[in-house]
């Protein structure tokens, strides 16, 4: 059974049909790409999957469970975590605290225990620190743990966002244009990181990207979206050579 199964997903904003009859099946452990020209509806699909928007129609199933029209928090608890196209870190918190915020639901003590500094507070905080540092080490951010998140360079902010999403221990990770604004070297490094995350955490990843080098380099399958509809779907190499896709990107 597929990890993520989307059937006939659609949403209208007033008279605008943003996404129409979107379908996808992503197997466990797969690295899946979602591409398309600007305004094709890629980020809208992410927002539908994570509960930011409620779909007009369609069904979203994660690991067999129906998560359509659930709230964002419930969907995160069900196992979907995401990053954002324009980075959304907790700017005034430290790098470490950003990841610890991601651990919020997996490491728990009551507010009273926190206020009174009961033993459980120290125990759980210590575990959280260890777990967060472990994650930061994976992304080579451990030396910057005490910096304010807004002081990190751009590339590292992207990585921190991925680390924070992984801290919620998701089944499916959604990356919205992870390579946006990166130079070729940084993109290359990011590709390695994404592959590493897929292997190390046995993570299923769905990503939106404009950088074709990245998409053809790491995605096993892709879906091409144009004007809110599926243009082409299948194995990466075949899809990228499809004349229809080339036309959508480059024009006639």
């Amino acid at each position, binding site marked *: 059974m597929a990890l993520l199964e989307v059937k006939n997903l659609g949403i209208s904003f007033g008279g605008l049909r943003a996404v129409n009859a979107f379908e996808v099946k992503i197997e466990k452990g797969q690295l899946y790409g979602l591409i398309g020209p600007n305004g094709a509806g890629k980020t809208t699909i992410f927002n539908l999957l994570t509960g*930011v928007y409620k779909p007009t129609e369609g069904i979203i199933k994660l690991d067999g469970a129906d998560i359509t029209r659930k709230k964002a928090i419930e969907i995160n608890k069900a196992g979907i975590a995401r990053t954002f196209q324009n980075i959304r870190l*907790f700017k005034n918190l430290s790098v470490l605290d950003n990841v610890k915020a991601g651990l919020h639901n997996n490491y728990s003590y009551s507010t009273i225990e926190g206020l009174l500094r009961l033993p459980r507070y120290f125990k759980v905080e210590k575990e959280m620190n260890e777990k967060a540092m472990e994650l930061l080490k994976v992304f080579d951010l451990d030396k910057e743990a005490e910096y304010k998140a807004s002081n990190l*360079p751009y590339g590292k902010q992207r990585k921190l966002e991925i680390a924070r999403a992984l801290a919620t221990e998701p089944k499916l990770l959604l990356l919205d244009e992870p390579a946006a604004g990166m130079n070729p070297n940084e993109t290359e490094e990011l590709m390695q990181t994404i592959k590493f995350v897929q292997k190390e955490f046995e993570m299923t990843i769905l990503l939106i990207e404009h950088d074709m080098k990245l998409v053809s380099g790491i995605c096993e399958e892709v879906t091409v979206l144009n004007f809110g509809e599926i243009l082409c779907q299948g194995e990466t190499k075949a899809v990228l050579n499809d004349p229809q896709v080339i036309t959508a990107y480059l024009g006639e």
Partner: protein
Amino acid sequence: MRHLQKTTKSNFITYGIVILTAVIIQILSSAGAVSSLIGGLLVPLCAYMILAISLNLVVGILGDLSLGHAGFMCVGAFASAFFSKMTAGTMPDGLRFFFALLIGAAAAGLFGILIGIPVLRLRGDYLAIVTLAFGEIIKNVINVFFIGRDSSGLHFSMKDSVALNLDSTGEVIVNGPQGINGTPKDSTFLIGMFLLLIALIIILNLINSRAGRAIMSIRDDRIAAESIGINITKFKLMAFSISAALAGVAGVLYAHNLSSLVASPKSFGYNMSIMILVFVVLGGIGNIRGSLIAAFILTLLPEMLRGLSNYRMLIYAIVLILMMIFNWSKGGGRLKEMVAERLRGLRKPRTKEVK
């Protein structure tokens, strides 16, 4: 973790400052070096400092502008004064004041939750306007309450004290616009400082815990906080009601320092809310220690400058402006860094810059 130790150290410095201030003022006043005018300001000073740090929890940590803080203080003050008046003589003073504190905090906290549920859906200026209105509503509603007690029990009216129909044994407890008279004077400066310390511990411990991280992450980015599974409504309401409950404690302190408690615009109106906000803004939004210092200076300054008569408000204004520059402008930030460096000495290297 080094990070954890650093914040713990900074928290303990704040506690130390408060304890030291309490000891110094106590010694000065027992040596007779404090004028009666300033002596009369000491309990309100504690109340203002508690109000300032509790409002900073909403404005600085939760990131929402609330202008109704005096309303919560008002609820705490009247709920506790009513209780103290009712039970006067039935139990020892200390125990009664302790219960009065609990009742004041609980009543204000409850109002915080009730008002917070509809109001926290709003953001920014809208939230400020609605909280301002709620603060005024609380004050005005209390002004039309008449509650009396006689041999047959409690009487309640919203018209006037005659409408209570009290028999010969009756006494009016809450007398509308004239408020509550004869509240026992239980507040002292030392109790006030002790309550301030407890409020401080609650707020600083909250900030450095799981709940505090959730609250600050909502402040920094609501959508991202939701995407990592943080329950926005719950934590917003938590911060708002804890802040309201602490304002209630300040109200209890304030009420038990006065022999007659009146819900006047001066003590519980929006002027008061704005004054608390001034403490928070001047001390630095999100900076708890700063709020304490700002409340301390701005409360005592007008009294200390009384000798200068007409120039008093001029100097007050200059101090306001200087504090603003010191806290907010870029140059002031550098100045602050320089001062901090001097104090630290040259032993430690500058904090690392990110390349």
